[in-house]
Structure formats: structure tokens, C-alpha cells
């Protein structure tokens, strides 16, 4: 995978197929980006499990926090890394030791570790780096257009409302975007 530029279909397939996300570095501070992403992905119907040793045993947005990936008592589809790039190596090692293994390693905006990515890809996992799942979900659903953001795509298809709401758009599973 070219980690400088991801095809929309690659990101869409990941967001479509993953339901359980472990978020390493999730913050309880309501103005931190990791809290935003946690809240947004929960609203979009994902199960998001916070991982943060300092908050272990407490709840963030009603979700029990674990100290490490290996403490999570259920299978996870995706590990979202909200930590410094150097920390990604160890987190990928932890993820690869899980049984069953997650399918995706996602590193947040500004987080990039090519060695860790190569290791995960060699083990058959998909990797995304230096991207935010909230921004990508907002871009592919069309919601982020309300904020004047350039989605770098055009479409003559009607956006799909999600969750029975009117100010929430979804990915429209099973449809092509263009």
C-alpha cells in the first residue's frame, strides 16, 4: 500500500467492515481530539473501546477503559493509535499477539511509523497512517462538506441519511460513491 495516498475505496472498505475499534490513547478530556473521535465513532454506531493505562477501570462516554490491548476481553477489528509515532511499533506488536488478530491498524493524523506498518502488512493486516477516521467518515459520507471541506471527489448520487436522523449522513453500505 502506498501510504502517501489512499484510494477512497480502501478507506471505505475499512470503515464498512470494521465494527469494534480499540482506541489506544483515548482521552477523558472532552476537548482532546481523541475524545472527539471516540464520541463521533460511537455516534456512527461503532463499538469503541478506550485503551489508556491512566484511566483503566474507569469509563469514558460510558465505555470501560482498559490498560492495554491484551486486557480487552472481546475480539477487535481495528486498532486506532492516538500516540506518538515511536509508540506505534510496540502497539503493533501487541496487536499482532492478540487472538483473534485485528484486521486493521489505523494511525491518527500526524502519526506515521513505516516499520510498524510494514510489520502489520506482512502479517496480513491493512494499515492506514496519518489519517483520522472521523474526518474520513465525514468525507466519504458527505457530512464534512457542511464544514466547507474539499472532499476531493464528485458524485451525482444522493447522500444517504443514517440512523433515522436528518443531520447525520452514512456511508451507504453496498453503494459505490462515484
Amino acid at each position, binding site marked *: 500500500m502506498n501510504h502517501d495516498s489512499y*484510494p*477512497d*475505496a480502501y478507506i471505505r472498505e475499512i470503515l464498512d467492515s470494521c465494527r469494534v475499534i480499540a482506541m489506544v490513547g483515548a482521552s477523558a478530556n*472532552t*476537548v482532546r*481530539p481523541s475524545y*472527539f473521535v471516540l*464520541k*463521533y465513532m460511537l*455516534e456512527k454506531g461503532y463499538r469503541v473501546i478506550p485503551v489508556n493505562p491512566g484511566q483503566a477501570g474507569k469509563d469514558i462516554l460510558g465505555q470501560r477503559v482498559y490498560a492495554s490491548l491484551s486486557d480487552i476481553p472481546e475480539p477487535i477489528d481495528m486498532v486506532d493509535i492516538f500516540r506518538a509515532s515511536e509508540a506505534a511499533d510496540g502497539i503493533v506488536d501487541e496487536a499482532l499477539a492478540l487472538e483473534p488478530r485485528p484486521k486493521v491498524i489505523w494511525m491518527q*493524523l*500526524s502519526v506515521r511509523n513505516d516499520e510498524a506498518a510494514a510489520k502489520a502488512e506482512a502479517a496480513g493486516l491493512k494499515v492506514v497512517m496519518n489519517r*483520522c477516521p472521523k*474526518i474520513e467518515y*465525514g468525507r466519504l459520507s*458527505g*457530512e*464534512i*462538506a*457542511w*464544514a*466547507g*471541506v*474539499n*472532499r*476531493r*471527489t*464528485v*458524485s*451525482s*448520487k*444522493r*447522500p*444517504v*441519511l443514517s440512523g433515522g*436522523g*436528518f*443531520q*447525520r*449522513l452514512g456511508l451507504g453500505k453496498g453503494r459505490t*460513491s*462515484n
Partner: protein
Amino acid sequence: MSEDHVPGFNTLSIHAGAQPDPTTGARATPIYQTTSFVFEDVDHAASLFGLQAFGNIYTRIGNPTCAVLEERVAALEGGTAALAVASGHAAQLIVMHTLLQPGDEFIAGTQLYGGSINQFNHAFKKFDWHVAWADSTDVSSFEKAVTPKTKAIFIESVANPGGVVVDIEGIAQVARRAGVPLIVDNTLASPYLCRPFEHGADIVVHSATKFLGGHGNSIGGVIVDGGTFNWMREGRYPTLSEPCESYQGMVLGETFGNFAFAIACRVLGLRDLGAALSPFNAFLLVTGIETLSLRMDRHCANAVAVAEFLSSHPKVAWVSYSGLPGDRYHALQQKYCPKGGGAVFTFGVKGGYDAGVKVVSNVQLFSHLANIGDTRSLIIHPASTTHRQLSDQQKTSAGAGPDVIRVSIGIEDKEDIIADLDQALASA
């Protein structure tokens, strides 16, 4: 269309930002003529106010019709995001309000729209923001104007009214060395003729009133974020790099990645200064943009024909149009605006101030008014109108001396445009 095919300029002009309406399927962009939007529930409202969800609250902060204009201009300029506002002047005010603190300075090229010179010299002084003037035709003058208080550099890509094409790359290098963003007003060129981000600009502003809208029917402005500048470095832009008191301590620069500047302009500048664009104007502007490339091609072809006619007219002392081979700025036009030099240029009428007044009084097809970038051909004598309030020296350095006539060539038949100027000059 395959996912990785990058749409071309004409396709983006028509489609960027505008999918069918999610609730009705309406294909043209609906005019969401409403002040406010209901929340789905209390949690949704809290998420919107906390910037944790994307959605609409109040048209002073965002509106779905205005959002189509925003994404479309961002796509055409190659930026990451945009913000539509009430006017080009509002765009400049909000950009500077986001970048500057009281006591800060910015550098601007003197070759600017007269209204911008006023705004920078007088209105901004009341905010304790200080403009240092440089010469847009001399890159070294920008280097010399840099001080530790400099926070931005501002230029027009094609300068109004003189037809000057500015060396964007040279000035971008000065900005980079100074560690400040380069702001380019791309109004006269439009993104069809020039894309400043490709030459090192960090922020683009537009008076959408002009060629983007193109029909002289709506005032509007757009701010485009290039996504290129690192706002978190050195803490020189605290609006982006410091915790924001009115958003519970959020740091906008780390929360919104490479479109943080556009978001800051919206959720602080537009929210607090209030210069919102009307959804109806946004609709007219997005409709205008659909034909931008067709209009610009005709504008430029007509402008060349008119400039050639004037160059050989006995009552014309000089013509300043970068689209003419041999013009002082022709080489820069070929580099930065290879599809054409635009539709706005100046010429000098023999007989000075009085002759200039006569020409603008005698036209029959041209409209004598203070605008540019209309389908109609427009004419003005800057010394007696737009630049009247400037000193004689400021007038001359802004390209608005006593004999100067500015024209904005429309998309009528070129023979009719030329015939009108011919008769107006004959009676001057």
C-alpha cells in the same frame, strides 16, 4: 467514474460540493433560506456546539447552500477547505482577525484594489494591526519590510487596476524564510487562470462578486485554506495554537489538521464578527461558477482584441495589459496565467484627468460603475472614483494616476465593445 480518477477543472466547476439533496433528491443546489436548523436531540446539539460533530446550527456559522460554494471554490483552487463570507472585504477582515494580535504587522504589495488599501491603512489601524507596504513588482522590497512583528504577507495575483502580474513564487519564498503565510487575493485571475497554491501561497481570498459569480448580481467573499502552513510551530498564531477559551480550551490547530485555518475562520471569525453570506447569494455564485471557464476564455479573448485596438489608437497614450506580447508583465502572465491575462486592464488617455472623465461619460455600451468581472463591459476612471480618497502619490503607485482608465471587458461581441470605445474616445 472510477474512485481515483481526478476530475478536471470544468467538471469540478459544475459538480464539486453539489450532490443531489439528501432529503428530496433535488439536483440543482437548493436555496436553504433559513436562519437556523433544528437539532436531532440535546446530545446532538451539544456535539455541534462543541465542534464534535459536523452539522448545521445557524446560518451565521454555516449553511448548506453556502457550503456548496465553499467546497466548490476549495476544489477549484486545490485547497483543503474554504469559508464563504459576505464580501471580499469580509474575507480579508476574517483572515487577518484569525492571524493577527494587536500590535502585529503584515506586509502588503501597494498594487492592490483601492478598497483594500483603505481597509489596511485605516480600518485595520483601529485593531492595532499595522500594514507595511512593499512593491509587488520588486520581490526584494518584501524582504526588506520583514520585522519580528510580521505575521503575514498579502498580495493580489493579478493586481487591480494596473494589470500587474505578481511574481507569486518569489514572494512565497520571502514568506517561507520569514515563517509567515502568504495570502493571495486571486479575484482578478480566478482559479481558471491562476492557482496560487501551486506557486507557494498558503491562503487564497476572493471577492466572489467578480469573476466567480460573474454576472454582477451578488456580493460575496471566499477564504480558501491551502492546508500548507504549520500553525503550531513557535506559537506565533495563538488563535490556532493556544487553547481556545470559547471552546472549553480546545486547540483548533491540532484538532482540525490541515483545514484548521478554515475552521478557525468559521467558528471564531465568522461566528464573532458576523459577516455571513446570504444563502441566496451563495446560490447565484455557485450557478455562476458552473460557466467560469467558458466566460474566462471569452473575457480574455475579448480583452486581447480590445487592448490591441487601443494600442494603435491615436488618443491612447499607453495600454497596460499583460496579455499583449511586449507588455512589461507578459512573461509573468505566461508563467502564472498562461490561459490569459484576464479581463481587467488600464490604459492612459491623452489629455489627462479631463479626457478620462469625458471617456467614461461618453460610453454607450460600457457601464460606468465601480465593479469588475461582470458579463457586461465596465469602465471607470479610478482617479475620480475608487481611488479618489488616496493621495496623488498613492494613486500613482497603485496604478491609478489622473489619465488612467480601467476597463473590465465583458463577453459581448468584441466588435461592439471596440466600436463603443472608438466613439467615446472620438468625443474625448
